[in-house]
Every structure is written in C-alpha cells, then in structure tokens.
C-alpha cells in the first residue's frame, strides 16, 4: 500500500461507515429517518444499503397465521388449497420451507395487497378441476389467525385449547382478503352476496366479544396482539 493511496481509502472507509450507520441505525434516533431517506436512492441503486434488522423488534409478532383458498368450480363443486401447516412439518420441510413464513405473513395485509391476486392466480394454475371442461368460477382467499395470549392468560388458554399454539384449524380469527372471479375485477375482501361489492362483514366479525374467542382474553383482543 503506497501512502498516496491511503487518504482515498480512508475517505472510502468513512463514506462506507456513514452509509452503514445512515441506513442501518433505528429510525427512532433523532435525524435518522431524514438521513436514511436522503441516502436511500443511491444505496438502493448500488445494493449496499443495510437491511431491516428488526429481529423480533420492537415487540415480538404475536400472530400465528395461515392462508386458505376456496375455489368454486363451474359444476358447483368446491375445493381448497392452503399454505403449509407449520406445526405439521418435519425437520426437512422446516429447513427447505424457511422462506415460506415471510410471504405468508404478508398475505391479507393492506400494505401487501399486490400479492393477493398473484396468489389467487397461482392457486388456480395449480388446482385440478374436478372434471374435464369444468372451469373455476370463483376463488376466495382467507387468512386464519390466532393471537398468542398474554402470559397472565396462558394457563386459562392452555386449559381451554389443550396446547399452545393450538392446531391451526382451531385458529379463531378468519379474514377474507380477496374474492375473485377469473376475468373479473378482484375484490379485496368478502363478497358473499355476489353483488360485486366488498361486504362489511369482516368489521362486524372483529367486534365479536373477546371472551367468546377461544384462547384470547379481553386484554389481548384490546391490545390487538400482533404488531
């Protein structure tokens, strides 16, 4: 290393340290968000920005969820598809399906609405029609969730459900996040009456008395549980 090169190298080091801190430190620090926003276009284009290091932070996600698709065929029959059952996986499946939980966690969230229709299309491509010539008439995507009860409610919930987390078919919360007729306009919610409008039912469901939800205490429901 020649002395002539080192000042330039020192400058590179300082810039890289600045980029690291500017795009990686928590945004609750004063001024951090502004620095991050300013650096973002350049570091994103170069691929050297820090990733999201919020590992179970600031709080642990308390929601366990899975996604189900219900297909109605032109002959009136129905079939279902679902994301993997995390609890039923063997060691190999847990390893190779390591990326699955991330995307499944996004389904049903308003921020990730763009993922819903491709999922519906994927499910329809993968689905086997019940008979030749039968076409899919409608697909409904449903998210099922169970919020982990607070530790104070743990024993009560365990007595009620047997084990925690309970088997996924006992997850009490159900949210339709897409209803779609192939060729038609996707509806981001439930359209049970088929009038082409999203039903207000999910809102009413959310207002169920918390005590009626197995494994979920009033405080947990009030707190919302998941981040």
């Amino acid at each position, binding site marked *: *290393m020649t002395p002539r090169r*080192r000042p330039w*190298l*020192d400058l590179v*080091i300082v810039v*890289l340290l600045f980029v*690291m801190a500017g795009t*990686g*430190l*928590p945004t*609750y620090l004063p001024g951090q968000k502004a620095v991050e926003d300013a650096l*973002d*276009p*350049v570091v*994103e*284009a170069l*691929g*050297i920005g*820090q*990733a*999201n*290091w*919020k*590992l*179970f*932070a*600031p*709080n*642990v*996600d*308390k929601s*366990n969820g899975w996604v189900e698709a219900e297909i109605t065929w032109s002959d009136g029959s129905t079939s279902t598809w679902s994301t993997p059952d*995390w*609890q039923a996986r063997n060691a190999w499946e*847990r*390893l*190779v399906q*390591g*990326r*699955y*939980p*991330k*995307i*499944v*966690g*996004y389904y049903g969230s308003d921020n*990730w609405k*763009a*993922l819903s229709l*491709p*999922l519906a299309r*994927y499910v329809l*491509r993968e689905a086997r029609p019940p008979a030749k010539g039968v076409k899919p008439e409608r697909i409904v995507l449903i998210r099922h969730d169970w919020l*982990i009860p*607070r*530790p104070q409610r*743990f024993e009560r919930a365990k007595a009620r459900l047997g084990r*925690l*987390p309970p088997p*996924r078919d006992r997850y009490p919360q159900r949210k339709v996040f897409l209803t779609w007729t192939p060729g038609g306009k996707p509806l981001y919610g439930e359209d049970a009456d088929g009038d082409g409008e999203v039903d207000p039912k999910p809102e009413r469901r959310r207002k169920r008395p918390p005590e009626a939800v197995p494994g979920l205490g009033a405080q947990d429901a009030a707190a919302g549980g998941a981040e």
Partner: protein
Amino acid sequence: MNGLWPRVVDGWTRFWHSPADLRIVAAFRIAFGALVALHLLLQAEFVTLWWGRSGLVPLGVAQRIVDQDAPSLFWLLPGTDGVAWTVWGLTIVVALLLSVGWHARVQAAVLFVLLVSLHNRNSAILDGEDGIARLLCFFLIFTPLAEVWSLDARRAAAKGIAPRTDDSGWAVRFLQIQTAFLFLVAGLEKMPGADWHQGTALYYTFRLDDLGGRGWVPDLIRDSLWASTVMSWGTLVGEALIPFGAFLRPTRRVCVALAIGFHLALEYLMNLYFFEWFMILGWLTFLRWDEDVAPLLAWGRRTFGRNR
C-alpha cells in the same frame, strides 16, 4: 493535546490498515461460497414459485413491491421461468467458483450482482440472511480473499508469485463491523419494545408456529416467565455489549464465543433458515489463525487423531 492527533491517526491506521490474516479470509471465502450455494440449492423446488412467471410474485408485481431504485438483472430479461432457473443456477455456480477461488475477486463481484438481482426480484421472501449475505459478499470483494487456499493462489505460485501479506485489511474490518453492527442494531431496535422490558419476549417467540418450536424445550423452561425474563434480558444485554467487546483484545475471544453460542442456541430453537450460519461466519472473521484456530486444530489432532 499536541500528541492526541498523531495518536488518533496512528490508532486509525493500525485499526484499518493492518494486514489481514490471509488464512482467516480464505477460510471465510470458502465457507461463504459454500453456504450461499447450499442455501440456494435447498430452494430448488421453489425456484419458479419465488422467482418465476408462474410463481407467487410475477415480474410486474415484483417491481411494484420493491424500492423503485432497486436494480435487478431480472428487469432486463424476460420474466420467464427459464430465466429464473438460469439466474438461480448461475448464482450457485459462481458461489462455488468463489469457494474454490477461481478468479475469486471477479466471482465475488458477480455473486454480489446476482444476489442483489435475486433479492430485488422477490422482496416478499427476504429475511435477515439475505441482507447479511449480500453485505458480507460486498465487503468480501475488497478483501485479499484468494492469496492462499485457492486456485488463484496455486496459479500464482506456479508463476513464482508469492502471496501479498502486507495489503491493508480494511475490508476484513468491514466484515467484522458489519456483523457486529447488525447484532448491535438488532438490540437497539428491541430497546423500545415492552415485550423485552417486561421479559415476555421469549414467552411469545416459543409460541410462534412458523419461526418457533424447532428444538425441544422442557415445559419447565418454555412455560416459565422467569426463564423468559432471564433470556429476554440476556438477549438485550448481549446484543448491547458483545459488538463492542469483540473488538477489544482482552474480551475478543469470550465475546466471539458468546455470540456463536447465542446463534447456535437460536438455530436449535427457531426456524430462521440460514441467518444464524451467515452470522456465525461473520463472527469467525474476528479470529486469528495463529492465536485461535491453529491451537484449536492442534488440540483436535492431539485429542482425536491418536485415538483412531
């Protein structure tokens, strides 16, 4: 005060520009390439699902959900399943070529471009391991990564060229700093969280059906709020102190051992795909071959070699 500035400059120069330990960098390169190849190989059955036209995130949707400045080779290529297979396969090949050290610096640079391309092609499946792999790969480009234990080194030796032992080790410092920085930020991000203050964080993570519940844990620990409190606070304290201690000579070994132990424990308890292994690799760059690794290897040979 007169002597302060020269001391700062001297400290800076020693910290950043001391020569790298060539064997540690080479060991890192070999393991990193192999790990990238393995973690992609295990996605073989999901290639079209994650990155293909017939998958969960078609090209147009991928461009809508990712940052508008984010580059990807996929934006320049047709959004077909064939392209997905080609880029995936090429990334594995390049990772293996990096591992064996064939034109290693070029392979590291190409691997970085391919990783960025794959990550931006489907940002809905990204997690910690992708971020740390991408950034470690970036800094690896600038390290003396193939001076020993590589095809490049063998070719150079055949020409009578000796390994360069006096190059600045600045990029290896960045491998260390990136690893420690991630660990520290993971702790800082937890600081405002009530779950961590109240000690209930581990109680919740044990009950996550997707990420938690991997290794068996006795109910006595799993259901105990005391155990959760100790582990939650232990995580906060560890993530705050280890990143600094790893750079100090008296505490370096202890901190690296604690960090690796922490990641191995998480690997046993949780399904975090390859995150823990990339982090462990990062922590291993804090070791020195002659001081740390060679004595361990000698001990291993003494202990296990004679019994065979």
